[in-house]
């Protein structure tokens, strides 16, 4: 995983629902298929929200970690 290049990072720290998802969707639009998108969020609801978003849009949730209250998601563009 770590060998792959992250194409874009979305910093959604401090933002409330629905902006982390909205910003992610907007960023994903600009990516090519297979590229990785990293999202940083502090909204505790985002764990479930990003799983739901990935399922609905067909993008893959590759990695999901939490450290010091910051949720990090790595998503692969469909």
């Amino acid at each position: 995983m770590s060998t792959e290049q992250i194409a874009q990072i979305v910093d959604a720290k401090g933002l409330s629902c629905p902006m982390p998802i909205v910003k992610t969707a907007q960023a994903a639009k600009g990516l090519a298929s297979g590229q990785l998108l990293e999202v940083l969020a502090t909204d505790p609801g985002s764990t479930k929200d990003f799983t739901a978003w990935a399922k609905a849009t067909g993008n893959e949730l590759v990695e999901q970690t939490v450290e010091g209250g910051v949720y990090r998601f790595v998503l692969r563009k469909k």
Partner: protein
Amino acid sequence: MTAVAEHPTTPVAEAAPAPVPEHEHEQKPRDILIICYSGELEKTWATMILASTGAAMGAKVRIFLTFWGLQVFVKDQKRITGDNVMQKMMSFMQRPGISHRKLSKMNFFGMGPWMMRKLAKQYNVASPMELLAVAQEMGVELMPCQMTMDMFGLKREDMIDGLGEPVGAATVISLLQGGDAPLFI
């Protein structure tokens, strides 16, 4: 032949509906139709959150703007709208525009909405106006109700940019019959 005889229930089992394969769920999501009927701050907020999220989830989202919900989409700087005295009085009593919404409860002459906006800012919650901009950018379609436009004497130039053609209830019903997921707010 003997195998069939040993399983007499097989034809019945075959007649039962097959379980939906997992990949079927990943097909194009249903379109969403929000009927934006109310004009209160909290309901406008809900409409904008759900519309922008729906678009972010890859769904086609349409909002039908009707009755008090249409007042939200009058330009903020418009103070009085309408042609006749009664229409003008209506807009005077309840100022149109997305930034002038009141709460249905705890309005307290504007103190409630002021506190809501203050809290929203403190907790980094996007305002209805910011969410509207996002929704429009993401292709959410806004369909004003022709009948409401007429009744309140609203003209196209009174309304914000980016609204679609005015439509009627038949368009709404036809979208619902076509399978749109409905939300009446």
